[in-house]
């Protein structure tokens, strides 16, 4: 589905988009494309879902907010209902099903440090299930870059 130019766009534009008057023109020049072609391809990559977003990636920790990884052991018979209940919380940014007794893993993103405890309590109340918190104690490395 992705051609060689799409892959170069994804691989080379995961950072470093300039804060300037014509950033797409500058990025296009780096890639040997025209500005129009780059804009058209970014639009298509967003539309197809290959890119979830094109723009700034914020670090909520540095904005006074918090992220916290959480997990729940959801009974299979209640799966759909619990997915709907958990996803309905705006604080739930990502949610994945994983193969383990703890089968639902999600990330809470909140704007204040005390927001994690409040969201945890609200989700526990809404689902009747325990919400395990796995806050990061130390970050060894983060590289959000992906090779396409």
């Amino acid at each position, binding site marked *: *589905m*992705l051609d060689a130019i799409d892959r170069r766009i994804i691989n080379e*534009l*995961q*950072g*470093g*988009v300039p*804060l*300037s*008057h*014509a*950033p*797409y*023109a500058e990025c296009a020049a780096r890639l040997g494309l025209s*500005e129009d072609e780059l804009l058209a391809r*970014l639009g298509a990559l967003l539309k197809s879902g*290959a*890119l*979830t*977003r*094109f*723009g*700034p*990636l*914020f*670090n*909520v*920790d*540095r*904005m*006074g907010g918090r992220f916290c*990884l959480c997990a729940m*052991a959801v009974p299979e018979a209640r799966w759909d209902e619990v*997915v709907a209940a958990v*996803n309905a919380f*705006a604080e*739930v*940014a*990502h*949610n*994945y*099903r*994983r*193969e*383990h007794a703890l089968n639902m893993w*999600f990330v809470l993103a909140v*704007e204040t*440090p005390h927001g994690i405890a409040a969201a945890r309590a609200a989700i526990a109340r809404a689902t009747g299930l325990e919400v395990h918190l*796995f*806050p*990061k*104690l*130390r970050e*060894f*490395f983060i*590289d*959000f*870059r*992906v090779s*396409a």
Partner: protein
Amino acid sequence: MTTVTPALDAIDRRIVAATQGGLPLTPHPYAAIAADLGFDEAEVITRMGRMLAGGQIRRIGAVPNHYLCGMTANGMTVWDVDDAQIERLGGQVGALEFVTHCYERPRAPPLWPYNLFAMVHGANRAEVFDKTERIKALLGASCRASDILFSTEILKKTGLRIGAG
């Protein structure tokens, strides 16, 4: 958890709210954001530059969807590592080129004995297993137990949602 740095001011927060869904795909995206907010382009560029320097913005660019980019296997590898060794070994695991996130997190015994989390992506599960073997070799006797939790479904992925404040 990490330390709190000074909160953004109201104008910064409006810029965050206006850009968290992505930049406009127009030749002058910062000017377009500025026009929507009633500022000039220089104000938006200056403030976003400050947030980039301050770490509130990690980077500006493409945010790929691993699955649709062919990296369909996503294994959260988890390890019970000797606390006395985790700082040294965590740094080594995090430096592996195929590890995209690496954190120390609290254990939750007896259900959850693991304190090191390393996210490994691959084109298929075999590739993730191969990469996981390299982590296992690196940790050696300092690791008491491990597991790989493959994700089988994305249930939600919206990214950050912050209000304009």
